[in-house]
């Protein structure tokens, strides 16, 4: 990835991460602490699907190394799973 591809990757991931954190705020009244994790999940998910697993799903075109559809899909999938996991963890009894 380079230039516009990296910028797009960061923008998409931050937006998806923010959406994930907003969902956590609404459903579980989660704190600001959960925000970095949601954004990191989106960044990693987006990167993984674009860079590593993009060969299977490169139908959305490419912007300077970023495979658009897989990048968005990866960010959404991994952020959704991180939100679900966080909700699950919040339900677990504390020590």
């Amino acid at each position, binding site marked *: 990835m380079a230039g516009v591809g990296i910028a797009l990757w960061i923008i998409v991931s931050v937006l998806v991460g923010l959406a994930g954190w907003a969902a956590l705020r609404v459903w579980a009244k989660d704190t600001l602490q959960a925000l970095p994790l949601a954004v990191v999940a989106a960044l990693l998910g987006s990167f*993984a699907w674009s860079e590593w697993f993009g060969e299977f799903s490169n139908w959305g075109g490419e912007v300077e190394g970023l495979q658009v559809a897989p990048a968005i899909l990866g960010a959404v999938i*991994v952020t959704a*799973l*991180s939100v679900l*996991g966080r909700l*699950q*963890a919040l339900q677990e009894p504390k*020590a």
Partner: protein
Amino acid sequence: MAERRAGVPALMPEWLQRVFTTPAFAWLWLVARMYLGYHWLEAGIEKLGDSRWMSTGEAVKSFWERAITVPPPPARPPVAYDWYRDFLRFMLDHGYYTWFGKLVALGETLVGIALVLGALTAIAATVGAFMNMNFMLAGTASTNPVLLLVAIFLILAWRVAGYWGVDGVLSRTMGALPKPMTFPRVAGVHFRLRG
């Protein structure tokens, strides 16, 4: 979560324990699993379609022949340990490469499928790590060190590595995840993975 017993030191800091044991970080292990599984699957499928692996074993034979070669000094042999070179020579002399090629191709494919699906994740990662170790012992670095490292992390995260996969579905259907792991006495002290 179980209460920590007084005087029992934790094996890892609290935040690191959370990374390896709670569903909140299961997404991280899903990505690691997919990465590792994809590599194994890609390598395995390629070998499954190659007659040098699946019928004659020629690929394994030439790999072993190259590995046991000892060049004149100061050049170093590909295999650093004599016992491992003897082991490869024994297998080569007995013609085991004919079935070993099939074993490697099938093993890599099955490990890849298991990791992608999250089925028996820790066992699949252990088998993968064992293969990485053997490739490295035979003198091939390639991507093996990175794959081995990812496999070790997946083994450490065994409780939640398959949470978003078959392991997770089975554990949610058939009952709770295993209880927190208690290590036996190490150097006179009881260690626990999580407190």
